[in-house]
């Protein structure tokens, strides 16, 4: 069973107040350096060059998300728990973060309430935690509901249904126009 993590709301506030510098692209800020700073803040040695290279080679949209996550995880609750460092490093390079980065822009992560909550919950899940005051089942269910990857998959299917509804509307409109035009035919 996953251990209890921090309260959700303070993290949501922290993310909403993410400084604009953390939203800059990887060609303007050194995300690897940010990660190393995080490790130093935890009182740990920085990852070795090979590990740092793996991080630096992530796609640029992933790196933008990584810098936002590092801002989030600099919250006091995490800083006093250096035992989460290894899980943090794995999470920064995880598939779940990469897939999210492909679908949602960094600005939306910070500005949209649901996207903020999604990222916070994803981070906690990646660290093996769930929000204080919630059950693991509720936390998992809430993340599934907010999951952009899952939503994108459903949306692709829903668009087909919407396209069918649109075809129906257009067919009805064409039929009405034909009925109106039929009035002018010679008797």
């Amino acid at each position, binding site marked *: 069973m996953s251990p209890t993590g921090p309260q959700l709301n303070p993290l949501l506030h922290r993310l909403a107040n993410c400084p604009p510098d953390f939203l800059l692209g990887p060609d303007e800020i050194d995300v690897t350096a940010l990660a190393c700073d995080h490790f130093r803040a935890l009182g740990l040695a920085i990852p070795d060059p090979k590990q740092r290279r793996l991080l630096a080679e992530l796609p640029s949209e992933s790196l933008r998300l990584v810098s936002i996550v590092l801002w989030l995880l600099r919250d006091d609750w995490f800083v006093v728990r250096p035992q989460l460092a290894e899980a943090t490093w794995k999470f920064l390079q995880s598939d779940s973060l990469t897939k999210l980065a492909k*679908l949602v822009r960094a600005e939306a992560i910070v500005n949209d309430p649901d996207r903020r909550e999604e990222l916070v919950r994803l981070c906690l899940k990646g660290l093996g935690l769930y929000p204080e005051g919630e059950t693991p089942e509720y936390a998992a269910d809430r993340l599934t509901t907010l999951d952009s990857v899952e939503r994108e998959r*459903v949306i692709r299917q829903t668009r087909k*249904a*919407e396209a069918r509804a649109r075809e129906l509307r257009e067919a009805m409109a064409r039929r009405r126009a034909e009925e109106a035009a039929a009035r002018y035919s010679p008797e």
Partner: protein
Amino acid sequence: MPVARADNLLSEWSAQWPAALAVWSRFVQLHEPTWCFAEAEESAAQLSGSFAMIRLVDHSVVISLRQVVELGLQGFAKEILAHEIGHHVYCPADLTDNARMLARMRVGLPTKEHLAPFIANLYSDLLINDRLQRAARLDMSGVYLQLGSECRDQLWTLYMRTYEILWKLDRGQLARGEIDGRLNQDAQLGARLIRNYAKDWLDGAGRFAALCLPYLLADEAARMQKLMAVWSDIRCAGKGAFPDGLTEIDDGELTGAIHPADDAELSGVDASAADGSKGKAQQTGTKTAKNYRQPIDYAEVLKAAGVNADPADVTARYYRERAIPHLIPFPVRRLPRATDPLPEGLDVWDVTTPLEQIDWLGTLLNSPHVIPGVTTRQREFGTSPGADPETIPVDLYLGVDCSGSMGNPAHHLSYPVLAGAIIALSALRVGSRVKVVLSGEPGRTISTDGFERDAATVLKTLTSYLGTGYSFGIHRLSETFHPDARISSRVKPRPVHILIVSDNDMFSMLDSESKKRLGWDVARQSLELAGGGGTFVLELPEQVRGSSWSQNTDGYLGRIAEMGWNVAIVSSMEELIAFARQFSRGRFGGR
């Protein structure tokens, strides 16, 4: 319900009314609800099926305390009352917005438009309940827990799951049916829609309908409709009144009925990133021209809004609303020199003179014994030069072709009928009287009793439809314009302008003979007797004008003009406006 118990319940609920109002604002003023304790009282208040309802026309709330007890909702007085108040102050709040919401939802429910009132109730309830639960900390979830329901209808499950997501409740606390990935995501989209469009709820209406549509295709959510019937409180909200401004289609009404998944702001997924497609079309910055509903769609929207009116009144109202922005200065006859009446003395009143000309003061001064034709007196008037030019309104004879070729104006917009409505209303506005004659000959005819001043009667007759025969019976003019016929009951008949609305079939009618008179002769004589000029308004579509199809259109038009009639071709809005402007500059001059 026992009297004592009813009194207790009434005092409890009545005591909560001020608090329920205060939930929205301390400035909200609504009169207390009508409380019903028995079925007979519910019937009298027109409450059927639901335990609560609102009526926008008189800002009323009706609550059945009998059903409240049956459903076990006694402890939710503040929640339910605040909810009903919310329909008056938030959504839909007024008749026009209620109708506009339904119109937008109908666009989002192709083939299921008749369910728009049901979906509108769900949507407005979501908006109101979310505000009450979160901002006012009322227990709206408790009301739904008490109401239902083990219902597993898919739409009900979606609806309840949406509440669970909005209020961060555990899955299954309200929604008991199966929640697969698709339904869960749709509920999430629904929750985002409610939050994002809380202030601009009208813009979200079409999207909500589109979201619900897939869950209605199978069985129209029959079980949920039955379940929600106990709280379908805005089903009759629009009863008793005619909302204005519905002939025009709003900006966003047609483009707003998209599935929330197609709205990047709601889905949170960039369309191009998701599947490489361009996603929904982006709106340009160009302002589009106004769109208008067809009369039949207008009637459907009003019906959905609960307006229970005679279809003929609905059609008349449609054309009135379309005509009003285009009213013109109706030509009047101006006298070269004005005269003012000058009283000159008394003369004997005899019985052949109209009764209203008796001067009673003069009569009684002459003799206290009133003997008609002997002691009765009438005032004689001379004239003196006046200061202002005198104008005489010109009455209007409006003949409308109601044959099959003209089409039913109640179904599709008829530009000639609209032209007739503009001219008729313009005429009434300056004090003219209007006679409307509908004719589809050979066949039937209907008309106003005579020359009318009542706009409603005129429009209702004008927008009727017979569908008989092939053209307006031009020979009908002789019933009104005949040397021996009294055109009006007035002592001094006014000139009459004859306006005939028809199409190219009028040419055959003019050539036809009835009672040994050609249509051309009737038209010529009627124009002379009317004394106010005449106009043919003909609907000639492009494919007919200049066509060699069995008629010499230009020849006929020329012959009509030679008789002294004006001719206007009206088959589009642009031609109609041009005709109206030209008519207003007619030979009777401007204002």
